[in-house]
């Protein structure tokens, strides 16, 4: 081993695990023969003792407690902020969801009310006197009538299923013109289904069997655009 090699690897040969036993032996051999390298090794060993002492002196050194305190404060601040941010985000999303929900419910209600309004328009219940001018037998006609008032051509023949609602068919063939009424254009006419005592038919100019005058019957009245009944039929 040469002096340069000894300086590079020989000074710490005993500690360097990567060296082979032969290299360690060569380093020991060189130190025993070369006084300069032996002196260098002695100096290094002395320096190492001092380095050990320095290492020992700082072995128990650690960061002062204030560092931990500051870090804990920072930690709390950091996570409090992020917690608050998360809570804010959740609140914002909740509010947005609530707003959407309210919007949807409002829209549905509005739609429902619109539909109901339209249906009421079509199915508006009315108290009808079949013939106000001839309303001599008022008691018989003060029935509460469910009315399906519509253009006969648009009349839906299917009953709408509501209890107590009378629905008239739109077949005009079964109607009997009331006495003294001329056949008219049925475009604007409406069919009213009413319940009345049979005797009330007399007020419309129809013959009535006096024995059965008290019976309740159901009739369809064809009402012209002047509001007066034009024709009548007995509903089934």
């Amino acid at each position, binding site marked *: 081993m040469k002096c340069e090699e000894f300086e590079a690897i020989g000074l710490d040969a005993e500690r360097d695990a990567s060296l082979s036993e032969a290299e360690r032996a060569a380093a020991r051999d060189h130190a025993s023969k070369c006084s300069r390298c032996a002196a260098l090794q002695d*100096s290094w060993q002395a320096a*190492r003792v001092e380095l050990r002492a*320095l*290492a020992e*002196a700082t072995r128990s*050194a*650690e960061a002062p407690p204030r560092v*931990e305190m500051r870090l804990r404060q920072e930690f709390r601040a950091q996570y409090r902020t*992020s917690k608050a941010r998360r809570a804010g985000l959740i609140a914002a999303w909740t509010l947005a969801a609530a707003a959407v929900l309210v919007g949807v419910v409002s829209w549905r209600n509005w739609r429902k009310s619109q539909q109901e309004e339209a249906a009421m328009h079509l199915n508006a219940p009315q108290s009808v006197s079949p013939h106000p001018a001839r309303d001599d037998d008022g008691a018989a006609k003060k029935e509460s009538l469910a009315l399906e008032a519509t253009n006969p051509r648009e009349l839906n023949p299917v009953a709408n299923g509501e209890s107590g609602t009378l629905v008239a068919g739109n077949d005009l063939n079964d109607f009997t013109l009331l006495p003294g009424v001329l056949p008219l254009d049925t475009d604007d006419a409406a069919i009213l289904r009413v319940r009345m005592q049979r005797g009330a038919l007399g007020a419309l100019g129809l013959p009535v069997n006096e024995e059965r005058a008290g019976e309740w019957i159901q009739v369809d009245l064809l009402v012209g655009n002047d509001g007066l009944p034009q024709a009548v039929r007995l509903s089934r």
Partner: protein
Amino acid sequence: MRIAELERDDVLLRRVAKGDEEAFALLYRRHQAALYRFALRMTGNAWAAEEIVQDVFMMLVRDPKKYDIARGTLGAFLYGVARNRVMKHLERLPPEVSLEEKKEDGSGPGIVLQDGFTPGEWAEKREQAELIRAAVLGLPEEFREAVVLCELEELSYEEAAHMAGCPVGTIRSRLHRGRALLLAKLEMLRDLPRRASVMRGTK
């Protein structure tokens, strides 16, 4: 030892990420001393070492996900971060080798007075410690790091190479140069008082 102290670093770190302050405190107590010692030995300045340790853990507070368990232990990761901070600090500032300042304010590490030493022996020990410390701090950064890791931290060459992020051969060569420089500096520092007294004698 409490059960919590036995928890692995990565488990604690997951708790830290969820805002568990106690887990953070455990991690801090587990690693701070080694990082502080390394920073202190590299910078020779207690304030700088404190600042560096604080910076390292502040990074962990702000972004615990920076550590990737697949890339090694948390200790090695923190050591790497501390090393970068130390190097930046050393780049910014000239090395602090004022021995007198350390003696006066007592902030610098010194020899602990042990039983059996006379005041004269204690003074001599302390002087030797200051000399070696000044010599270490006077080394260029890369050589100083090799000396600190291998001689003061007593890591193997492989461990030191891992910490410094370089091959083992590089550590060995830096250590070789570092030793040579250290011996020269020690020689020079020991000669200073003698030269001074010779100068005073000639006046």
